[in-house]
């Protein structure tokens, strides 16, 4: 079990995270927050790149800095922007990282063949990385994180730069890898975690706002999400009155999906089940980083 206990991180005078207390058991955790919320900061502390300003991170009861290489030995990590040598082949690159991970040469070779097959790169093992597409590179990144069969797999925005097809493929892959380990995956794209995460962690104002299952998180908005049709001419005033989280135009009408806390509801409104996306937009509605985003 991985535990963050009252962890804070400051960069000089700037507080990036405050009093984060979290527990991770085996399963997939989606770290969902908009840009700049502190996802990478939290992850970098979990992978020993950053040291908490306050608080401690424990793995099976021992501080991870004390565990040192024992901890890193069970860790797999895919950084948000991960580095590779463009003249290396995926095989050579993975062999190098396997050496850093303290793996035997022969064990590493076997594992690499296995993993490259798993991520669908078995036909390009001897091509130089500089010829790889973004999606292929990202798959190499996942393969390297899995090299040492980690107990803790941490992926920082693993789907950024991937097209929808690659994303779907990636989700499938994660499901395969999900057994018997802690997987923490950060994203600001709701659909990345919606179908696969057991738990969602949301960060707001430098603190953990929620850590719960998707169903429980969606309950927050139970009975508050509606859909209705509005004449285009009236769309503007509707928008001003309600918090719209989705709109779709059909001929001369607009279909709005919106949040309201009103009790006296219009009979034309249809109550719908809240989705994770609704919650995300609701929570971060006044977050500047979301301004201008389209739904």
């Amino acid at each position, binding site marked *: 079990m991985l535990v963050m206990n009252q962890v804070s991180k400051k960069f000089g005078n700037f507080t990036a995270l405050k009093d984060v207390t979290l527990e991770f058991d085996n399963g997939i955790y989606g770290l969902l927050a908009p840009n700049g919320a502190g996802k990478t900061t939290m992850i970098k502390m979990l992978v020993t790149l950053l040291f908490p300003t306050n608080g401690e991170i424990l793995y099976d009861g021992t501080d991870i800095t004390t565990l040192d290489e024992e901890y890193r030995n069970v860790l797999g990590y895919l*950084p948000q922007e*991960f*580095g590779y*040598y463009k003249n290396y082949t995926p095989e050579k690159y993975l062999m190098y990282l396997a050496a850093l*991970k303290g793996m035997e040469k022969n064990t590493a070779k076997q594992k690499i063949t296995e993993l490259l097959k798993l991520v669908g790169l078995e036909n390009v093992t001897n091509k130089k990385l500089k010829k790889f597409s973004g999606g292929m590179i990202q798959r190499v990144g996942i393969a*390297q994180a899995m090299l040492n069969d980690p107990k803790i797999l941490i992926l920082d925005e693993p789907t950024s730069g991937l097209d929808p097809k690659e994303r779907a493929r990636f989700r499938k892959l994660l499901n395969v890898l999900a057994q018997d380990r802690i997987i923490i995956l950060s994203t600001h794209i709701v659909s990345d975690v919606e179908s696969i995460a057991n738990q969602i962690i949301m960060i707001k104002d430098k603190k953990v706002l929620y850590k719960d299952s998707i169903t429980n998180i969606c309950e927050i908005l139970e009975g508050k999400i509606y859909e209705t049709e509005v004449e285009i001419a009236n769309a503007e005033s509707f928008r001003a009155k309600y918090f719209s989280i989705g709109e779709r135009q059909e001929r001369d009408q607009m279909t709005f999906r919106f949040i309201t806390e009103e009790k006296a509801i219009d009979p034309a409104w249809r109550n719908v089940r809240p989705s994770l996306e609704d919650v995300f937009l609701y929570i971060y509605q006044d977050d500047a980083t979301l301004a201008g985003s389209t739904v």
Partner: protein
Amino acid sequence: MRIILYEIGKLFNWKVIGLLFLLSFLFYQLFLSFHFEYFPNGRPAGDHFKITKQMIAKYGPEMNKKEYENFKKTYEKEVNKADKYVASQEEFANAGITTYEGFKKFDRPSNPELDNLKAEIIFKKEIDIFWELQARESIMERYEHFEERTLTNRYIDNEEWKKEYLNSESRHSILPDYVIANFSNLISMVGILIVLSVIIVVSRIHIIEYQNNAITLQYTTMEGRNLFKKKLVAAMVTATMITTVYLGIFFQLYAQNETSEFFASSLFSFEFNGHYWLDITFFQYIIASVVGVYLLSFVTAAISTYLSRVVWSYISLIGSQIPIAVVLILLIKEYLITRMFGMQYPVYLTIGTYIGLLLIGGAVLSFRWKKERIIDIV
């Protein structure tokens, strides 16, 4: 071990190797080839070189007073031969010149025709004996006056040491000054070439990771931040490799200068005008120079490794390496390799500078290692 090999492998790519070849070629053409091709440089240096070698074959690395008497006899015999030659030259005989002494003293204005003839004998026909005699005379001149030269030397002001120096048997050692000068010139240029090459190769060691954004991945593996130490080992191994290869090639080339006869001769030689602090043989001097070059190569590797970790771009890397390279080159040319143990500088300055440089290299690295263990990788 595997990690170290990977790290070394990353340092060498075709661009770097090409740059090393180019630099070596330039250095060879500009600074080295001359000292191979023109050694010893012309006459009578060549004759001097030959004669001193004969002396060593006959007397051993030193020529004591008794052996010197023998040397003078040989000289007289050679003079007799020269006398005969001069006497056999009609033009000189007609002018009343029948001895080598007369031939030597004869000077231009009185008889331009004869003057031309003298020049022809010496410079055109290159009659060996006249060159050789000239060389022998300079040896005798130096042997007979080395004490005065020592006594008037402005670098030696410790009377006791002066006495010790003069009474040393090594003062009779046979070692022409140009042999040392030639080697010293060569080895210091080779030393500079090695320092520059180590800078070129080793400086990339950390910055490639920074530029490729690989540190986050490396530092979260089991090896983790210890990679810093492995990279340091890789840097030192690389420096050793570069130094050994360059020195290996250099000594192959240097062998053509054929100076091995002098290996057992002391630096206290009566042949020198410049003096050395240490009574060591030429061979020991070569070894000392080689050790010096290795030490400089390690210091350069240490400083380059440190800088490579603390700068953020190739431009600032080059910017910070230039002053360091300049200082090292100046020190090498001044007293670290050239004039190593020479009396122009206190011997403790040389040794102290080496120790100082090693301490600086060690200090910056241990400072960085302490920081590396606790630094946030942002």
